[in-house]
């Protein structure tokens, strides 16, 4: 038996499923304001209590923490770029209050790369150490962003080591772990990831205690923005990965409940309808990047269109059409607590608890992406294979069983208008939870 929980802003849903992913029971309780762990406890407490092998929870707390500027850590923001990225400084253009809540200080040091080896400059190790020393006592976490780190993240690791030597065991977020080319968006994502580290470790710790009390022996997971799961330890290390996880598990649940791999999903909540796309069984990502709390970020999170309630049917129809790949090609699936308010579309049984069900049925995931310069086209298969291996390893680090990890998809995209042959290779992997 496994359970899934989805902590929403108004209500918290929980679902109990058997090992064939059949829904045995669902419950809905009012969410405890500002306390996702208490909401999880209340909802799980109302489910029948068989022996659970797995509990997966969608917290939605990370985004709230950013938008309400609550529980954020002070971050020392280090950019490794030298002159190549000074035109816009770190955190420029952030909402004033968010910058005040998050920034312990920023610095740009020499170093960073280019498209080819000859264009890399050595990291100014002394400058990194001086910055770290200056941040001692104020910074609670560190964000490191290296120029062209999606090609090579070595200098980010080198800087992290220097910082650790100076400041001890602070959470350090590295940009290459979080995003792709696009320095400012990747840096913003890295800073938010670092800022959320306090929230994430506190929640992970309380959640572990609560779940251990409720169902000892169950493997514990939280949802992530790509529709997969990760362990609580992984959440504490990479809190940014949980951004967008609420809508992502609703989309996963809608897919599982209808047996569809591709659809447009309307999640009808009390105050608004979120419209998203299900593609290949997982949520489709925001096409042109995402924005959280007024900041553009390079996180890979689901694209969605919000329609406020009470809604204009024409507005909803338009939102659905905008997420279609072509006119009327995909079915509409309507789920969520307010699903009855929308007449059209498929209304699957247990659609009220789609988020909780999506959490319960999802695999543990990982992904990896690199920009690679190919000496020639024949080098592509080896490059792809290396990325696939990293994706597999990433899923295992997130808590997947290494024996059963499979690759969900691999994409290689040639980057246009660049001197030389560059490809962006990205792989996603997922597998059942490890029971270790």
């Amino acid at each position, binding site marked *: 038996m496994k359970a899934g929980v989805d902590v929403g802003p108004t209500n918290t849903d929980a679902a109990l499923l058997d090992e064939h992913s059949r829904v045995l029971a669902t419950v809905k309780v009012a969410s405890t304001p500002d306390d996702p762990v208490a909401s999880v406890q209340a909802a799980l407490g109302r489910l029948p209590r068989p022996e659970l092998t797995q509990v997966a929870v969608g917290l939605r707390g990370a985004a709230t923490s950013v938008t309400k500027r609550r529980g954020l850590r002070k971050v020392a923001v280090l950019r490794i770029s030298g002159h190549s990225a000074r035109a816009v400084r770190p955190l420029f253009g952030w909402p004033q209050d968010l910058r005040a809540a998050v920034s312990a200080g920023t610095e740009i040091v020499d170093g960073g790369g280019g498209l080819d080896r000859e264009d890399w400059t050595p990291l100014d190790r002394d400058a990194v150490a001086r910055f770290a020393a200056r941040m001692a006592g104020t910074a609670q976490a560190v964000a490191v962003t290296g120029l062209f780190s999606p090609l090579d993240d070595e200098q980010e690791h080198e800087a992290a080591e220097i910082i650790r030597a100076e400041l001890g065991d602070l959470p350090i977020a590295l940009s290459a772990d979080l995003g792709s080319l696009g320095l400012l968006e990747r840096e913003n994502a890295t800073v938010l990831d670092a800022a959320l580290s306090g929230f994430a470790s506190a929640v992970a710790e309380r959640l572990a205690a609560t779940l251990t009390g409720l169902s000892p022996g169950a493997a514990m997971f939280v949802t992530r923005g790509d529709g997969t799961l990760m362990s609580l330890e992984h959440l504490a290390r990479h809190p940014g990965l949980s951004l967008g996880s609420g809508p992502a598990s609703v989309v996963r649940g809608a897919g599982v409940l209808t047996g569809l791999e591709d659809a447009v999903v309307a999640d009808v909540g009390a105050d608004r309808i979120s419209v998203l796309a299900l593609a290949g069984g997982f949520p489709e990502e925001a096409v042109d990047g995402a924005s959280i709390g007024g900041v553009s970020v390079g996180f890979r999170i689901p694209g*969605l269109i919000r329609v406020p309630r009470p809604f204009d049917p024409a507005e909803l129809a338009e939102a659905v059409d905008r997420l279609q790949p072509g006119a009327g090609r995909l079915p509409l699936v309507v789920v969520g607590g307010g699903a009855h308010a929308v007449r059209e579309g498929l209304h699957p049984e247990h659609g009220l608890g789609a988020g909780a069900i999506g959490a319960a049925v999802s695999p543990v995931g990982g992904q990896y992406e690199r920009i690679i310069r190919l000496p020639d086209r024949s080098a592509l298969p080896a490059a792809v294979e290396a990325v696939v291996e990293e994706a597999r390893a990433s899923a295992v680090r997130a808590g997947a069983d290494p024996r059963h990890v499979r690759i969900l998809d691999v994409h290689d995209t040639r980057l246009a208008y660049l001197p030389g042959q560059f490809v962006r290779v990205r792989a996603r992997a997922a597998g059942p939870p490890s029971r270790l």
Partner: protein
Amino acid sequence: MMIARAAALQALEDLGPVHVVQPAELDPELLVMPVGTAGSSAVMSERIGGTEEPVHLRDKIEELYGIRVGALMASEIGGANGCLAVAWAARLGLPLVDADGMGRAFPGMDQTVMQLRGIAATPAVACDERGRTLVIDHVTGRWLERLVRASLEAFGGQVATSEYIMRGDQVATATSLGSVTRAVELGTSLPAPLITGKVAEAANSILIEGLGPDLGRLARIEAESEFLAVIEDGEPVAVVPDIIAMLDTHTGEVVQTEQVRYGLRVSVLSVPCDPVWHTPEGLRLAGPAAFGLTGLPAVPTQGSPTQSSPSAPAAPSGRAHSPGPSGSPCRTGTPTSPAPPTSPTGPTGSPRRSGSPLQSGEREGAS
């Protein structure tokens, strides 16, 4: 926030406002330095640029010419380069001329009014943010383009350039005038759209299906790395070199050609280009045939010569120049009324800074 716009805002915040001057106010003896960057937008998204590029460009130009630089000008007002010129004028503490080289954006470095007016393209200077500098001399505009493009590999995919350098007294007759003013005006009031609707097809050609007041209409758009023509009922409604832009109806932001996808709600609008582009020489350099469009009947434009489709030289291949869209609207020359509004009440988009290649942000990230 797009990079060039952010760079301009940061420079203005740090260094104070930029003085925009008319050509008549320029010192006739001092140099005017057109500036811009060339290269790949993927590289620029990562290597966002430094603060010293304009300093390196200016120092080298003053050394080459033995004359001081008195003002900056945008090589092209459209795309990222329109904003970058503001940032760099602020960095140098020099005025920015209310003019530019194109009156819009074009993919080729030589597609400038200066080229049409016989201003020499070289000596020209290319450099990167670390001051690594290349001087190019004794070549035409086309060869300048070819050499700069070749240098991009060595420069890592992005380079700052200044070419068609003039004296102050040449600006009034050799550039597209009033560009900065018009960009600011367009940022607060856009012309009525040609059609408002949704993208009904984006795979092969782009089809726009009219919605609201335009219900029942269907327009086809020809596009490469910029929007080249709008065709309705077999008749061209707007054609390059006039400016064609697509705006996201929900955000008012510019939609670039590679961002067009099914379902987007958009307004398509056209802004007349500088009349110089409708002259036979202008059309040869930047008319439909220069972009590989042939067989289009002439578009009646108001206040400018009827355009013909001369058999023009081969199209500029690829884009070594602006990474930005040609679709960033700006209008220059004597005011001519925009293409007749076909929709009485279409949305005009929200105010924005013209000239910056804004990404469409209609889809929010989940939270």
